[in-house]
């Protein structure tokens, strides 16, 4: 059973500090939403507030049209995968997976046999078949994470909340699990909200991304949309790797000047402006518009992150292909792809122009 989520005026306070203030967050039934934000942004608090685990939280939560704002967490039919896994250490994997099904409100829904079958099913899908009689202490990180996920899925919840469930796995494992997660969510069709600080995961997983920073939503949309047309500086910084370069520029007479480059900027008033240049939109080498000095080269196999200094500003460039030929101190040409500039108002941080 799947349902749409509607969260309004969510606020979480710890003592006097307002940790989270979200005006609105909605997911369609079966949608995979990603809550993207750096550490400390309030992702865990937001998820826990939606689950009803924080007594200090206020706001309205509607699931499938039902107002569950004042319902106890036991009754909300929400499952959560904690960043710390939160497995019951005194129970075997099987008992961990079975635990939700033996809760008082659910224990009569299924016979013991059916429970066993459900657990076996979930264990099968997640590759836990051999581990059912082990205790969490005897499992590796990847295995624990799968048990945590299995426990959330075994009861076919209406809403699935995932709090950085794969952040602490090694790189290879993480990528594999990511694909598995996406596939499982699609098969089960359960409305899901996935919290992560990793923008790459947001791209890979999200139908819709909610960018959370310092407790507030900065922008909501498809990942590519947020990447190409960020509504403010923070969103531009949080999507895209390496991080976007931000340099000071000036608008005069409907033209913007930055680093010695000039581009048309129609409709903008004169004044200072913050210009965003994505490392992937910059090119080095050969004869280009600007002259830069190489400060550092970090090779990446199929590309390199080259830090250059131009007009007193330091920029990072993501090159196409390896960058063996250049050394620190060399002078290189620096080019900016047309249509890639993002202009932000330095005071409001809002984006005033994109695509020039």
């Amino acid at each position, binding site marked *: 059973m799947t349902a749409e989520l509607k969260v309004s005026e969510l606020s979480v306070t710890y003592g006097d500090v307002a940790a989270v203030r979200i005006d609105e967050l909605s997911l369609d039934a079966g949608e995979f939403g990603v809550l993207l934000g750096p550490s400390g942004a309030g992702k865990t608090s937001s998820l826990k507030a939606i689950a009803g685990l924080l007594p200090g939280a206020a706001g309205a939560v509607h699931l499938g049209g039902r107002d569950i704002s004042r319902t106890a967490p036991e009754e909300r039919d929400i499952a959560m995968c904690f960043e710390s896994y939160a497995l019951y250490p005194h129970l075997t994997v099987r008992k961990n997976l079975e635990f939700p099904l033996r809760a008082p409100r659910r224990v009569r829904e299924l016979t013991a046999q059916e429970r066993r079958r459900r657990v076996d099913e979930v264990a099968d899908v997640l590759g836990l078949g051999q581990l059912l009689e082990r205790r969490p202490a005897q499992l590796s990180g990847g295995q624990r994470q799968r048990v945590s996920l299995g426990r959330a899925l075994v009861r076919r919840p209406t809403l699935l909340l995932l709090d950085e469930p794969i952040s602490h796995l090694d790189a*290879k494992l993480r990528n594999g699990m990511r694909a598995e997660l996406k596939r499982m969510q699609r098969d089960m069709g359960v409305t899901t909200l996935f919290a992560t600080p990793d923008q790459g995961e947001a791209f890979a997983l999200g139908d819709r991304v909610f960018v959370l920073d310092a407790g507030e939503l900065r922008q909501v949309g498809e990942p590519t949309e947020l990447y190409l047309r960020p509504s403010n500086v923070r969103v531009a910084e949080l999507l895209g790797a390496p991080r976007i370069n931000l340099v000071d520029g000036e608008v005069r007479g409907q033209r913007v000047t930055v680093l010695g480059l000039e581009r048309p900027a129609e409709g903008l008033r004169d004044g200072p402006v913050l210009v965003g240049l994505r490392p992937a939109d910059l090119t080095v080498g050969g004869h280009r518009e600007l002259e830069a000095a190489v400060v550092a080269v*970090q090779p990446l196999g199929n590309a390199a992150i080259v830090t250059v200094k131009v007009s007193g500003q330091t920029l990072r460039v993501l090159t196409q292909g390896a960058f063996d030929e250049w050394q620190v101190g060399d002078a290189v040409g620096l080019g900016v792809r047309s249509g890639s500039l993002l202009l932000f108002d330095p005071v409001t941080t809002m984006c005033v122009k994109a695509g020039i």
Partner: protein
Amino acid sequence: MSRVELRSVSKRYPKADDLAVKQISFEIPDGELVVILGPSGCGKTTTLRMLAGLEGVTSGEILFDGKPVQDTPPAARNIAMAFENYGLYEQWDVFDNIAYPLRLRSVPDAQIESSVTGIASGLGIADYLGQRPGALSGGVRQRIGLARALVRDPSVFLLDEPMSHVDADGRNDMRLEIRRIHERTGATMVIVTHDQEDALMMADRILIMNEGGIEQYDTPRQIYDAPATAFVAGFVGEPPMNILSVSRSGDSLDGAGFAASIPYGLDAALVPGRQLVAFRPHLTRIVSGPAAGAAGGLVLTGQVYMVEPFGERTIVTVQVGQTRVKVESRAQESYDLDSVVSLLVRTEDLHVFADPAGSGRGERF
């Protein structure tokens, strides 16, 4: 400064059936930065701990500058180590934590002051010097542990997953900083990580370990361009290399549900029977439509399975027979799902590996 050498070093944990580290031998010249890279459980941390003296060596020798040290206690080896789990002294402030190793060696206060503040600003934690570690975030605490290790002047620096708790942006800056510190001190450094980007960006040479053994020990460039084994090919590079299990029959390569003509120039590298052909996603090009094969490379035909935009790049997954091949491009591309496309990989970008098991490399995590 020390030259580090391992000769036939093995490690068996008590009550274990298997060796955690299987007779590995390698040498690190004085002043090099070597990154030991591998998946969880491959033995990289065990190897580092043996270098530190925190684990005993079951057999084999470890030499610093030609002198065997495998029986020397850690304190006598003149090494500095930073741990993944920080090991900070909670009762002291950050400055004292970092200064501790210097104070132990009776370094004059003025020098302590400059060394500590220098390292702290380099790692971006200068603002926290007066605080206790307890309240600080994981990433900051990790950097404090790193600073404490780097502030000394030991023969060898050993770093165990020094950035695992730092987020993506901070990681890049820290990689640069570690490199800078390495260049400035000229010290021999050994860094353990499971993140291949860390390895590619920081290492003079990368030691790739798997299941207790060494897969390849080479410069990042070589490891990326010329992987010695299929494991290395699949481990280094994001997205991982496409690895196809094929068998040669006559003029064509047969795989699971597909066939391709052997590209000109690849003939010499192929063996009869089963083998693995591998190529990097970013060196694969999509040429739309079921085009005829070009002579200069491998041509595969398939249907578009998935298109994943990632901002800077797009990854298209193409279903070729029963295998999925990934293509990476920097353009913002879009393809209709299930549309038929052809993939082209130049012959010089192909790698061939023997497939002794006779079955494809299925990776179950």
